[in-house]
């Protein structure tokens, strides 16, 4: 797989305060994003996610290391032609309407006028903002801005789309819609590089992830390789049995309205509980085997640091 975006040992320090003190934010970031994949970049707040993205986009200059996009240096306009970017908490020129706003960005990519009109209508439809196309952005809600921002990132039909917290500040329906758009981009052959701290989203859509904590990448690879498929424990919800009957079969997590939630560790233990319920004519409400999630992995790594 060709690397669309590759970072090699990127370092960045900022000086802050009245008596400047150097604080290293990125301590040697190396990663590569392959063509046509959705790459998740995750880490806790302040880990250096946004700083990395700003380095890639040429907004800040790394102190050391190299960044290449499409095999070219990342500051090369020919490389930037093919990149779309949605910043975190986007603020835009609030005196423009959504249509004017997209038109402005399309002009920066030198898109011809007729093509511009078509493309903007198509994008407004894609992000479901047709109804607000002629309203000034200052009247937009946070979620609406996020959608228009996404449309803005796609205005040049980029081969690589970089999204900083694309699902932040959206309601569940909005999140699902944006997620669907991201998956559609992959289906159309575009590469997506997104940062997030909402782990469920990453888990659902990303092919590969990198985990950054404290300016270092701790782990990088395919989700399936990072997370073990082994069942850690099984959660069984039963009713019709007294609490003392269940003790010894597993850890009782809660009892509510006659139902008990048990945490059972071994497969044999699960069989025993099922046998017991059958014998006592109880009822099974749910049985969920819990495998390791990205969240477990993430929490482990942050703790280790």
């Amino acid at each position, binding site marked *: 797989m060709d690397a669309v975006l590759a970072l090699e040992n990127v370092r960045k320090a*900022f000086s802050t305060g009245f008596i400047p003190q150097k604080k290293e934010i990125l301590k040697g970031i190396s990663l590569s994003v392959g063509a046509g994949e959705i790459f998740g970049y995750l880490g806790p707040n302040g880990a250096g996610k946004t700083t990395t993205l700003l380095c890639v986009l040429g*907004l800040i200059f790394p102190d050391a290391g190299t960044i290449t996009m499409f095999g070219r240096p990342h500051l090369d306009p020919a490389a930037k032609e093919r990149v779309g970017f949605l*910043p975190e*908490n986007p*603020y835009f020129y609030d*005196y*423009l309407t959504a249509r004017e706003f997209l038109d*402005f960005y399309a002009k*920066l990519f030198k898109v011809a006028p007729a093509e511009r009109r078509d493309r903007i209508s198509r994008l407004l439809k894609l992000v479901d903002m047709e109804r607000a196309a002629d309203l000034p952005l200052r009247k937009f809600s946070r979620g609406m801005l996020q959608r228009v921002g996404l449309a*803005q990132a796609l205005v040049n039909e980029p081969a690589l789309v970089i999204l900083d917290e694309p699902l932040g500040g959206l309601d569940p329906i909005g999140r699902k819609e944006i997620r669907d758009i991201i998956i559609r981009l992959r289906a159309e052959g575009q590469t997506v590089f997104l940062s997030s701290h909402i782990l469920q989203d990453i888990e659902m859509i990303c092919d590969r992830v990198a985990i950054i904590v404290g300016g270092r990448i701790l782990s990088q690879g395919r989700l399936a390789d990072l997370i073990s498929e082994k069942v850690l424990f099984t959660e069984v919800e039963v009713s019709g049995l007294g609490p003392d009957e269940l003790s010894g079969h597993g850890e009782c997590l809660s009892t509510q309205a006659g139902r008990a939630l048990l945490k059972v560790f071994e497969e044999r233990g699960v069989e025993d509980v099922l046998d017991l319920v059958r014998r006592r004519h109880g009822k099974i409400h749910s049985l969920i085997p819990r495998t390791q999630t990205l969240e477990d992995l993430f929490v482990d790594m942050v703790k280790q640091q």
Partner: protein
Amino acid sequence: MTVNVIALNTFKEAVRDRVLYLLLFFAAVSIIFSRVLALLTVGDRVKIIKDVGLASISLFGVLMAILIGTGLVYKEIEKRTIFTLISKPIRRHEFLLGKFFGLVVTLAVMVAAMSLIFLAIVFFHTWTVEARLFLAVVYIFLELVLVTAVAILFSSFSTPILSSLFALAFYLIGHFSWSLETLIKKARGTGKTALQILHLVLPDLENFNLKTEVVHGLPLSTANLLYAAAYGLVYTAFVLVLAVLIFRRRDFI
């Protein structure tokens, strides 16, 4: 091309700024007030109207250039709109020049509006159209272009309030630096050389001031006019290059 797009957007932004209209309103009041001042004066009333009118255009033009110019670049960084711009295939100098030209066009429109009021008042007193008044306005505009470049230079690395103070200081120094000439005549030795260097480095905005000549009907030398125009353009270009050099290496966070 890219510069045009950014300049047009800057123009749209600037003309939707309320500060601009407040200043335009007071400029109009000040120009019209010159008529009242003229009533109180002994002698040629038209001279007072011309003098106060031109001074008002100059002063309010400079305030517009500084108050809007210092905010333009800073606001883009502060509100992070610059993130989506610089990540596009735009070179940083194109962004800065776009901002500059957008503001220059805005000022051109504002100076035209103020001049219209001014020329109308003069016309109702003299019933003649004086070409020299246009010339004076054009040189005021050249001065505003330079002040705009200075405002953008400061705002490319500083906050709006500091930049406004710096740019205002530049304007004031520029209008009083000619008095150094008197001091140079009196000084001797190394002091004289130091003063001469200082005089060379400091801006001389009096070059653009044609008020005295125009108001009192004194002759204007072509050589001086050409020198002043060239001085303005070269100085502006120099300040813009400096702004680009600073802007090119800075981080946006």
